[in-house]
């Protein structure tokens, strides 16, 4: 037994070392920095200070930005869920086309999100494709403000993170044992009832996984706001980046990072609690 545990640890050690070096150490560093004193020009004075947290909490701007980020990311994630589930369901039942369709979902990943968001600028712009088209049709006389709005931020996030939602849901639907569906049908459940009583509960782990891996990167993204609102709207990602790179206030950047991490963790826990309160067994 002890031998096996040693073997297990030795085989795990590359990933454990990786996690230690690139996850645990940075988090500790960020935490430490967040409690140091700001030298003014980007330097760090190693004296305990809670100034960064005071700034973060006392200025309503930072909390509002974090709140906006969470709300926008949450809305985008929910939209992703409703778009992704039917699509994943369709792919899982597409027979020989399955692999091709999955490839199509993956292809956008091969291009940087930055480049793909530029394409949206061309579409959404005042003189962009959509506005020109609508004006040519005579449906509108003045260009619509499609960019620079929270809606455009959410659109960009949905567009960028949809595959993150599709893949885990697809995998859970694909792995669902089809005899459960036959059993439900055999017992008198029509396709609709079969879906809500059997398919949906049994694919819930995929939904949960999709939610987390979509929501978490969406909260901290900053390229979407940069490009689709020309930095007129900011998310917490923008604020953290600016704190580090422009204001040279590493303490504030670190404090905001820690704050974000805690809040994201809390919102994921709340989501899990909320969605699994009725039947905890999905998660077992």
């Amino acid at each position, binding site marked *: 037994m002890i031998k096996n545990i040693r073997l297990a640890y030795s085989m795990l050690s590359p990933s454990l070392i990786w996690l230690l070096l690139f996850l645990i150490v940075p988090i500790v560093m960020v935490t430490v920095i967040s409690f140091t004193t700001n030298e003014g020009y980007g330097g760090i004075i190693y004296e305990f200070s809670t100034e960064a947290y005071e700034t973060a909490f006392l200025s309503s701007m930072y909390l509002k930005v974090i709140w906006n980020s969470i709300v926008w990311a949450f809305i985008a994630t929910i939209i992703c869920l409703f778009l992704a589930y039917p699509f994943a369901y369709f792919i899982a039942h597409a027979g020989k086309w399955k692999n091709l369709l999955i490839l199509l979902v993956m292809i956008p990943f091969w291009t940087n999100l930055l480049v793909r968001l530029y394409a949206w600028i061309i579409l959404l712009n005042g003189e962009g494709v959509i506005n020109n088209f609508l004006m040519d049709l005579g449906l509108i006389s003045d260009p619509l403000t499609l960019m620079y709005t929270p809606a455009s931020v959410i659109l960009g996030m949905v567009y960028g993170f949809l595959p993150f939602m599709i893949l885990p849901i697809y995998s859970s639907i694909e792995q669902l*044992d089809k*005899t*459960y569906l*036959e*059993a*439900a*049908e*055999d*017992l*008198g*459940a*029509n396709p609709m*009832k*079969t879906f809500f*009583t*059997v398919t949906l*509960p*049994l694919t819930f782990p995929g939904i949960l996984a999709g939610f987390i891996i979509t929501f978490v990167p969406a909260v901290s993204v900053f390229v979407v706001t940069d490009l689709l609102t020309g930095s007129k709207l900011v998310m917490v990602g923008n604020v953290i980046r600016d704190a580090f790179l422009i204001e040279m206030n590493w303490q504030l950047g670190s404090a905001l990072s820690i704050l974000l991490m805690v809040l994201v963790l809390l919102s994921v826990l709340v989501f899990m609690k909320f969605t699994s309160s009725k*039947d905890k*067994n*999905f998660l077992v």
Partner: protein
Amino acid sequence: MTSENMVELKNITKKFGKDTAVNNLNLTVKAGEFLTLLGPSGCGKTTTLRMIAGFEKPTEGEVWINDQQVANVEPYKREVNTVFQSYSLFPHMNVFDNVAFGLKMKKTGKEEIAERVMNALKLVQLEGYIDRKPKQLSGGQQQRIAIARAIVNNPKVLLLDEPLGALDLKLRKQMQMELKHLQQSLGITFIYVTHDQEEALTMSDRIVVMNQGEIEQIGLPEEIYEKPTSKFVADFIGETNIFEGVVTNTQNEYADLNIDGVSIGIPKTISLVQDERVYMSIRPEKAKVSVTKDETAHLNGTLKEKIYVGSVTKIIVQLPNGREMVVNESGDSLRDVKAGNDVYVSWQPEETVVFKD
């Protein structure tokens, strides 16, 4: 419920691409009957069952359940329930909710559901397990829940797809008897699929032996065992000695069959023509081996091996034509006979079964 016939399959053919799983099959199942579809894997028995359940649509032919053509009736509207090979209990529901599922779908009242679920669980002796999840139950218990989940709906027909396949031998034997008694007390028509011939013989009112998508033989268990009509059935059901030979004389009470130089008298149960090639089958327990020649003796040979298997001893006799024959002996009359000794094999000619293919 006016008709005697609960399920009728009329000229059913099912093709998967180029493969024919079931070929022009005709079958009538009577109300209250325990009918078994028996055959090796790939013989089309499960496909036939799935067409009755509605999971597969026949390529050609008609399925009738309780005097209604159901070709276009979806599975969830058919008055049949299935016990699946893998049980397929819903893993996210406890035992009560699993068993109640069918009744809830029919919008049965809460109190009636509770009462019927508890009755069904009582039948399978698991009424104390309502709060358990399927994975907290043993294989045998899951099997019982699967049965309870099906019978709670009072189906016209219960379809069982190798339901005992995953259980160990002892539990399987016990469940065979329980299922048989359950079927008798409920009076529900059972259509049971298995590849286990012993299981089929034990439980069934009638057995349908299938091979390569077609019915080889339909009959009572005794008929299937004692009077197989083809080499396939004789070979598939139980253990037997099958010999191929040429009919040499049809004039006497028994016809003569020449098996590679050894002549054996066979009953004329089927029409036999001079010089025709036919098969004969004799069960190991119908023949006996002796050291002295008596008047019923058919063959002489050499004792090759004695294999003790508990209830009987299997005697393997080498015949002069090079063939081997297995005979079951239950006494110890051959205790002193050793391998290499000359012996005689005898049986009543009426015990021989003759068929053409």
